[in-house]
């Protein structure tokens, strides 16, 4: 049990090459599913132990920090690990039928391999307590996601993947520069150790620049407006399962890393009092929310519409960070989770639609509320979550965000957040009207409900958005613990 932190990463890592060896698609999928479902179990155990006993530190290979690489698990990253691995597992369970339509069978085992590697990379970035290790795992997840995105049926998937590759690599290189500068000023790569040593060198220009480079690099990876250019195409043209997986996990992990850097490495005092990070993040987040939501309203391709919505939702997460308060961070962290569920579920529902229609265009979705009632009902629930209607998880995020704004007397910000959710109403309603109150096109009248193997995982994820809209002690409760520890208010 004490090796649990490293097992969580190594198990899917080792499973990946085995998938290549097994080759036979059905066997590969079965094997991968067993492996991938073990991850949320391990992550849940970790979270439970962290909540009970406090932070777990694991020196890899027995080489203690700061010489060796340390895995450090606290409430925050255990929570992120849990939901990233759970969604990864849920989407992979959904994948077999979905990719059968979209990816040639000769590539299925490679797809699964890449998928496992991508998840490994994301989890590796999350769990590690070592800066350079973040970079290495970031590249594992990035390279595999470029490949996964390029598998889309449309040739634009290729240009989308390439654009993401260029911007992603630039982002990663910026991060590498930032890490280098920090290393130069402290002599360590271990995050906890660095936080200690950075106290002696605050106000040093090199550290400021390091901070800037890390932030810009991460902003690129998390698609913070205006560095989001790679995201809409990548989400719109990737295979359905890939979009669902990446939308649910990838940007969230980047937000997590930003949280880790800002609060655990640099510290609130440096980031906010010295640098005034809030003065940069707050307007960026708000402008991003409004611009991206508005652009979303005008999209015909619904996957692309949801992609722009993702850019806006990243804005909410960053907005929460910019408050630098317990409620603000709780909002950010819980929204990472809630949005992962909602967007994952929505893209899975889009996959069901693409499975039957072969298209995700708004025009083709006429009357789909009748022909695919279950899929569309799930989609609507997910959409309501994006608006932030009560009973859905999205409401909880919004609640904490507004509370955080009000307690700092930021009336305007609170008002803007609320008004922006009405933009979400507009783009969701647009789809609802077409789906329910228009007749299906001639050729689409005989379209039937998606198969159970797609519907069940989608239903579970969307169901979870309702569950976590009511039972919040497992989401907002844990997020609060994490937020308090980030601000140094506990443990």
């Amino acid at each position, binding site marked *: 049990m004490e090796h649990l932190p490293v097992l969580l990463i190594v198990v899917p890592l080792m499973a990946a090459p085995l998938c290549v060896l097994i080759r036979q698609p059905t066997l590969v999928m079965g094997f991968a599913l067993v492996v991938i479902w073990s991850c949320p179990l391990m992550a849940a155990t970790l979270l439970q132990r962290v909540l009970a006993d406090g932070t777990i530190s694991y020196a*890899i*290979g027995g080489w203690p920090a700061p010489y060796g690489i340390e895995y450090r698990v606290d409430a925050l990253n255990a929570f992120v690990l849990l939901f990233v691995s759970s969604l990864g597992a849920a989407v992979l369970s959904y994948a077999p039928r979905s990719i059968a339509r979209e990816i*040639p069978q000769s590539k299925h085992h490679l797809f699964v*391999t890449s998928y496992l590697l991508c998840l490994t990379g994301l989890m590796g970035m999350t769990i590690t307590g070592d800066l350079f290790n973040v970079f290495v795992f970031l590249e594992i997840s990035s390279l*595999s996601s470029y490949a996964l995105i390029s598998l889309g049926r449309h040739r634009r998937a290729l240009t989308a993947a390439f654009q993401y590759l260029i911007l992603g690599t630039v982002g990663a290189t910026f991060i590498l520069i930032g890490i280098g500068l920090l290393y130069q000023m402290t*002599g360590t790569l271990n995050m906890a150790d660095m936080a200690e040593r950075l106290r002696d060198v605050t106000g040093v*220009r*090199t550290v400021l620049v390091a901070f800037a480079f890390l932030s810009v690099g991460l902003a690129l990876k998390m698609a913070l407006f205006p560095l989001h250019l790679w995201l809409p195409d990548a989400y719109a043209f990737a295979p359905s399962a890939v979009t669902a997986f990446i939308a649910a996990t990838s940007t969230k992990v980047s937000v997590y890393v930003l949280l880790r850097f800002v609060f655990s490495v640099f510290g609130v005092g440096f980031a906010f009092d010295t640098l005034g990070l809030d003065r940069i993040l707050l307007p960026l987040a708000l402008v991003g929310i409004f611009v991206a939501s508005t652009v979303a309203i005008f999209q015909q391709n619904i996957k692309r519409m949801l992609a722009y919505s993702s850019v806006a939702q990243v804005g909410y997460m960053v907005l929460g960070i910019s408050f630098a308060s317990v409620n603000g961070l709780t909002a950010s962290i819980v929204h990472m989770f809630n949005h992962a569920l909602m967007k994952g579920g929505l893209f899975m529902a889009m996959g069901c639609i693409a499975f039957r229609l072969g298209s995700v265009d708004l025009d083709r979705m006429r009357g789909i509320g009748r022909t695919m009632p279950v899929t569309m009902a799930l989609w609507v629930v997910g959409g309501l979550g994006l608006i932030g209607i009560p009973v859905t998880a999205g409401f909880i995020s919004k609640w904490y965000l507004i509370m955080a704004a009000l307690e700092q007397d930021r009336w305007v910000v609170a008002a803007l957040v609320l008004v922006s959710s009405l933009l979400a109403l507009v783009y969701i309603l647009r789809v609802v009207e077409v789906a329910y109150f228009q007749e299906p096109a001639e050729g689409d009248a005989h379209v039937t409900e998606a198969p159970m193997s797609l519907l069940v995982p989608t239903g579970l994820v969307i169901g979870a958005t309702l569950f976590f809209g009511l039972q919040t002690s497992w989401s907002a409760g844990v997020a609060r613990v994490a937020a308090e520890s980030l601000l140094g208010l506990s443990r």
Partner: protein
Amino acid sequence: MLLLTLLAATAVTIARMRSLLAAVMLTGIYSFLGAGWMLLLDAPDVAFTEAAVGAGVSTVLMLATLALTGSDMKPRGHSPWLPLAAVLVTGAALVYGTMDMPAFGDPNAPIQLYPSPSYVDKTEAEIGVPNVITAVLGSYRGYDTLGETTVIFTAGIAVLLLLRGRHRRVRGDDTPSDGETPR
């Protein structure tokens, strides 16, 4: 100093170059020069790797790609001012960042003093492999090395995913496996 100037000159030439083939060759040279500079920085392992990987492997890969795609490059229509501004700002930020850096070769730079005992001393005491770099690579940061191997593996899988069966695709019989072609 000469080497650095050469490096800079090569980089600028590559940036201005229209012929892709020549640019690729020059990139190889750039890597070689870089490797030379690395040697001067007391990093022979890195220098050898850079020479082999940067100048060798990547040049070969690029040439192979060029063979498949053609080596002409079109000049770009729009003005270079925006990218130039972005680069200048980034560069200025970095230069600003160097202002508080320890000078080149300063034995009292933080990384030379911390952690103490140094990797060199610890390696000598704990591992006993003469090449400290190899030793650290295999021990203290062995996990990064595992990650690095994984990156290569990932890239391999990615390339396979991208290029496997592409000739079939060209002929247009790359139908999805379950046979139903959605409209």
